[in-house]
């Protein structure tokens, strides 16, 4: 089985700070991978670098055998990578339907095809507020809308940046169900996460990032069994 996403030697700067320092990992088709690490370790930057939002200074990002580093974000999105930022960023003055329509792309043969109706089946709340402006929704609803919006592009891989951060525990549970539902659809999901419990519930494997480098990769069970790694890099 070929890898879906291969990252090697990724370097990225943010202003003057050298955030990613030769970072590399591989993701398989159909898996949920948790990118874990402390605040400031480089999780968000990794996602932004994959998406082209932070231009990588070096290294390669290979998606389905194609090098995507250095391309514009919209091109990367059209290749089948969907990005859900951590701070939600719904279009607050656009209605739910309009939010979805912005991201609408043609169907592709090798990925699930999403329509607003299918998404409303997955997120029943959204279906009840089609004409509500994004700004008038609660934090949890907005989080669901950003995921639904990203799915409108019919991605093969979804990048979810800190999906559980700042959400009530009960919404976090919904979020976990959603991620598992996406996996069941055949999507691959990369999540960045600090919450080991949450990651343990949804992810197949974990990659631990510290100072812009991957320090550990393994299954969730291997991570749970490895106390040294957990205390050193996750401060648990």
């Amino acid at each position: 089985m070929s890898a879906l996403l291969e990252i090697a030697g990724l370097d990225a700067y943010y202003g003057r700070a050298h955030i990613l320092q030769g970072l590399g990992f591989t993701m398989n088709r159909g898996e949920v991978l948790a990118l874990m690490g402390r605040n400031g370790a480089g999780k968000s930057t990794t996602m932004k670098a994959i998406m082209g939002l932070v231009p990588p200074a070096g290294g390669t990002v290979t998606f389905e055998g194609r090098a995507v580093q250095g391309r514009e974000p919209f091109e990367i999105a059209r290749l089948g990578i969907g990005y859900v930022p951590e701070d939600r960023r719904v279009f607050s003055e656009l209605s739910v339907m309009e939010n979805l329509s912005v991201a609408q792309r043609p169907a592709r043969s090798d990925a699930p095809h999403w329509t607003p109706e299918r998404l409303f089946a997955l997120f029943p709340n959204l279906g009840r507020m089609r004409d509500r402006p994004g700004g008038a929704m609660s934090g949890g609803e907005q989080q669901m809308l950003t995921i639904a919006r990203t799915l409108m592009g019919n991605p093969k891989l979804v990048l979810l940046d800190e999906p559980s951060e700042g959400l009530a525990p009960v919404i976090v549970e919904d979020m976990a169900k959603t991620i598992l539902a996406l996996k069941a659809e055949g999507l691959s999901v990369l999540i960045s996460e600090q919450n080991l419990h949450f990651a343990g519930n949804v992810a197949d494997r974990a990659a631990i990032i510290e100072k812009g480098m991957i320090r550990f990769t393994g299954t969730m069970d291997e991570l749970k069994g490895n106390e040294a790694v957990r205390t050193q890099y996750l401060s648990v």
Partner: protein
Amino acid sequence: MNAVPQLQAAVPAAAQDPVLVVRDLQKSFGGVRAVDGVSFSVQAGTMLALIGPNGAGKTTCFNMLNGQLRPDGGEVLLAGRPITGMKPRVVWRMGVGRTFQITATFTSMTVRENVQMALISHAGGIWSPFGRARDRHVEAADALLAQVGMLEQAERACGVLAYGDLKRVELAVALANQPRLLLMDEPTAGMAPRERIELMALTADIAAAKGIAVLFTEHDMDVVFTHSDSVIVLDRGRLIAHGTAEEVRRDPNVRAVYLGSGATSGGH
């Protein structure tokens, strides 16, 4: 690792009058009641956690206490004096310190200068156009920094500090006016588990030693259940539960709207 100075709990045994009293607080946005008749109080030297689902009105409630929002109704009393609807800077002068969810420091200044700035303001000296600001209140600033374990980094720029250290600087700044009440909005957001516990333990020590009342919002239930003396729960603008951490945790209503089964948020 920074040494956390152990402070002795020298609180006056029973602080009878609460430091903060909130009565029937009301706020609507475009017809939606964001906060609807909320009342509670905080005693000196104790920590009160404010929890609830996103959009329950926590931030609105918070912003009415610190003066960023003017309530539609109700009153806020600080040590018996009304501070309802006063501006943030006035509220601060009356003895309310605060930290922000997204750390707010002066990036073009050193750690010490950040604290000095607050001390200069507290002493009423900001209008002086002469004399070097760097030379003012140096000792007092260093004492505050020592208290939060940041003295070694006093000369560093705030723009380059680690996240957990920034939170400590904020705490030192918030303590500069010798507040009676400390408001902390999601103080541990974005921190690693161990950092969270350390910061809140430090806060609890200082609050107990100086008799400061602390009100904080929080999503991490480990922090809430470890470091609060009591907990209030908001849902859709209303207070739905009030009690000790244990009481609130067992409340079926709270479990339904907020806590859930506890499967993802840690081992409760």
